[in-house]
């Protein structure tokens, strides 16, 4: 392949070093066993051994669990508002999985819809995504049902494929092509590497066995929307925590809150979840007080409302909501068991 490159695995640290000169580089890292995309410490490449995917999805690098929106201060002349200094530092995320990269493409749609979300979009514009194809997906993964191949991505700038001793590197976007051209010390990709990479990608694809039936899914959800018995049944064991939504790479709901001390303070935004009753609670009523309505909203939003509004399904099949759920609530079962429309 014309633009492709190759690198031996033991040179990964050197490559990250080089990129660190221009970028703030994040790699899969573990804090007390909990993997997330965190700033590289300049040494540790052990993630190449253990990394399958992160618990905290990379959306957090663009849309963090909480962030300051602005500060305010009351003075003699009235209120003075101040935005946080805009982060001009260029970021590079190394090792993002194809599902999570697709999730960012999905999030781009809502954060750009009509009004531009400056916090998310500025980080997005400043970031290079270096994808790493899966070789060992989890049993909870079902990305292939959402049109994603675990070894391939059109949503990254550069794509790495594990060929055993090294990586086969393919540019995906112009940004990636430029970065690759500017990166020294890489050998040109060989035909043998490309062939090996193709095998690896295909093998990864075959490893995904969990599936959902996406055919007519909007129609099937619409037909089932008023079926309270079904939603009550699937919602029964849900404990209404925020795990499946907070750790979903495509969930973007947020809350806005102020903090005040004397005459100054800060407005924050923070992750919020449709699983929480308070999320829709109004003084006089709550349209989703009952758990089955909230579970129905979560499922319908991802596979029906979001695609109707923004033309893309808000799920990547990353499987986090299944694997991290404390009661093993499984969205694939909910979708696959939808009663046939009568």
């Amino acid at each position, binding site marked *: 392949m014309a633009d492709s490159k190759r690198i031996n695995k033991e040179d990964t640290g050197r490559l990250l070093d080089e990129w660190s000169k221009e970028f703030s580089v994040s790699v899969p890292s573990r804090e007390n066993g909990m993997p997330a995309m965190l700033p590289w410490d300049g040494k540790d490449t052990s993630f190449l051994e253990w990394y399958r995917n992160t618990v905290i999805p990379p959306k957090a690098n663009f849309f963090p669990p909480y962030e300051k929106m602005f500060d305010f201060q009351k003075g003699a002349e009235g209120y003075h508002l*101040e935005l946080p200094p805009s982060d001009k530092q260029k970021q590079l995320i190394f090792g993002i999985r194809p599902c999570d990269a697709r999730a960012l493409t999905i999030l781009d749609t809502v954060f750009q*819809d*009509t009004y531009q979300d400056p916090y998310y979009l500025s980080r997005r514009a400043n970031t290079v995504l270096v994808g790493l194809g899966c070789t060992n997906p989890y049993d909870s993964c079902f990305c292939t049902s959402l049109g994603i191949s675990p070894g391939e991505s059109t949503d990254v700038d550069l794509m790495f494929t594990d060929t055993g001793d090294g990586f086969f590197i393919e540019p995906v976007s112009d940004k990636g092509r430029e970065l690759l051209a500017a990166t020294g010390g890489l050998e040109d990709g060989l035909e043998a590497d490309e062939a090996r990479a193709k095998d690896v990608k295909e093998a990864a694809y075959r490893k995904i066995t969990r599936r959902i039936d996406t055919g007519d899914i909007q129609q099937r959800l619409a037909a089932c929307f008023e079926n309270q018995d079904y939603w009550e049944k699937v919602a029964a064991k849900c404990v209404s925590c925020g795990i499946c939504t907070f750790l979903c790479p495509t969930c973007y709901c947020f809350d806005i809150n102020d903090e005040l001390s004397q005459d100054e303070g800060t407005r924050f935004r923070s992750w919020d979840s449709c699983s929480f009753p308070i999320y829709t609670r109004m003084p006089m009523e709550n349209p989703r007080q009952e758990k089955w309505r909230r579970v129905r909203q979560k499922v319908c939003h991802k596979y029906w409302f979001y695609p109707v509004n923004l033309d893309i399904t808000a799920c990547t099949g990353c499987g986090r909501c299944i694997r991290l759920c404390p009661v093993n609530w499984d969205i694939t079962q909910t979708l696959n068991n939808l009663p046939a429309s009568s």
Partner: protein
Amino acid sequence: MTTDVSQRFLARDNVYLPHIAVIEKIIDETPGVVTLHFNFKDEKLREEFTFKPGQFGEYSVFGIGEATFCISSSPTRRDHLEFAVQRVGKVTNALHRLDVGSEMGFRGPYGNGFPLDSFAGKNLVFVAGGIGLAPLRSLIWNVIDDRDKYEKIDIVYGARSPADLCFKYDLDAWGNDSSINMVTTVDKGDASWTGREGFVPQVLEQAAPSARNAVAIVCGPPIMIRFTFPVLEKLGFTPEQMFTTLEKRMKCGIGKCGRCNIGNLYVCRDGPVFSFAQIKGFISSEY
């Protein structure tokens, strides 16, 4: 970055950054409701700001938070802007504590507003309950200021008790306007009440405005809306002829934060004004 001089620019750059506005007048409407008159601190913005009846804003009390209210004044009366607040929670309590001269934040205008152009040449039936008159009031004054463009005007307005009637000065003005057929009702009167008694949907049914070449615009508590649509249908209004403006818990006001949807429709992004045809599929189960 200072905001004193570049407030407008910044606000445009970052949609979440409010404009600073100053409270100019406070009107006690009912024991729990006030109308606040305000103007932007930035003079240029004061001149350039435009909106449509039915649009809403996000109002900040800094340090307490933001809440959503429609602009209750008419775009045709641009001396100042108005919104009405019922005291129900943290932010509304804080808004009630503001004085004339206090500063607050405003983001907006957001939402679609009423399809005024499509109302031209039609008979207009306004049905409102309680503080639900606030968004319709913006539209009604707009229509009155452009009276020639519209045909007959019917207004049916009700509240739980005489003390709960909002905008009494408007009710008087419209009642005295011979080009308007105004009906005011209360669920239950008191000793001094000489007007009509009865729930809004029933009074509407008795008033029986014709559906011919008409549109009905409804706003009030959800229970009133739910009972009003069937009455309108009985009177011959089609779902396309009925409009309402909805209220949901909101944070961002611009289609990002998630919570205000009814089915695939977001009250902030696709509303708050909807025809009954748009929402009737979801109304029984989510509203």
